[in-house]
């Protein structure tokens, strides 16, 4: 009996387990058994959901980086984890920055609009009260 056979079997078991887990999660997500509701939607301050392109680009970037690293890992035979290709971190960082920036800007814009709206309402009610007093 060779020890290499044991190692090879464990390697196959873990690979099959991971692939099986990914397949089950994929199937359950597609059949609605894993909750994916509003995955690509953001939430306004008033609680309404809106379609968020920033999320779509981040999902694509995530899947791209993950597949790229997985392929590198499978091909690498060295005894060290492979490095990410040049520019990958920058792309991922940019993707996150776009999402977070867009999200924050959306919040500030809504806040500004709301503040201005409240100011106008206050100004009108003050004017109305002054007219009644007058």
């Amino acid at each position, binding site marked *: *009996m060779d*020890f290499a056979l*044991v*190692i090879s*079997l*464990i*390697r196959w*078991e*873990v*690979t*099959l*387990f*991971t692939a*099986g*887990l*990914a397949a*089950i*999660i994929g199937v*359950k997500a597609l*059949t*609605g*058994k*894993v*909750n*994916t*509701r*509003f*995955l*690509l*939607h953001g*939430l*306004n*301050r*008033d*609680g309404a959901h809106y379609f968020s392109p920033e*999320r779509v680009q*981040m*999902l694509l970037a*995530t899947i791209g*980086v993950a597949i790229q*690293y*997985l392929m590198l*890992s*499978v091909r*690498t*035979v*060295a*005894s*060290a*984890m492979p*490095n*990410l290709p040049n520019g990958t*971190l920058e792309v*991922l960082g940019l993707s*996150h920055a776009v*999402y*977070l920036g867009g*999200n*924050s800007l959306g*919040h500030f814009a809504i806040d500004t609009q709301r503040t201005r709206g409240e100011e106008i309402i206050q100004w009108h009610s003050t004017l109305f009260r002054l007219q009644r007093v007058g």
Partner: protein
Amino acid sequence: MALHAIQIATGWVIVGFVGLLSATILYCIWIDKIDISRVISEVNRDASLWRLQFLIFTVVISLSLFLVIMGATPPAFPQSIPEQVLALLGISGGSYLISKGIQFSNPAAMNRPALQLTPSHVTGTAAGQSITVTASLPAGSPACTLPFIQWSLDSPADGTLTMAGSTAVYTAPNPCPAGGLKIVVRAQAAGFEDGLAQIS
């Protein structure tokens, strides 16, 4: 010689244990004994892209680490983890924390009142029976009128649902499914947690 035999025997025990454990976990997930329906969900029940990203990166990097460990002869933990991989996880985790900060600054994302459905629980539903479910605002809600309500059936969506504004009529299938009827009627509206009615 005896030591080698013990090593081989231990190896086979590990192979058997890992194999059984993996098969059991996968089987339990498949038959929903291990519930992963909310694996990428937030507290407010919306799916989270950040959690999905964490899940993907964790699986990919741990699988890569495993392949490297098992690729060495004899199997050995790598001398060092590349800084770029740590940075990858750092970017993902850091962004997640920032997004949490943004989310906590948004009252709409937290503590939303839940829509109330009447009746919320119905048992002993017969085949073909119709049940009328009505949505209402929770007590103490600042809103005066009901917003637009979207009705749906959670999977498995056995039966039919006809809806009109704040009311929906669920009709059970005829005949009922073999494993019994387990239906969740869901009402969704902007600014509110989903209202749920369980029918069995």
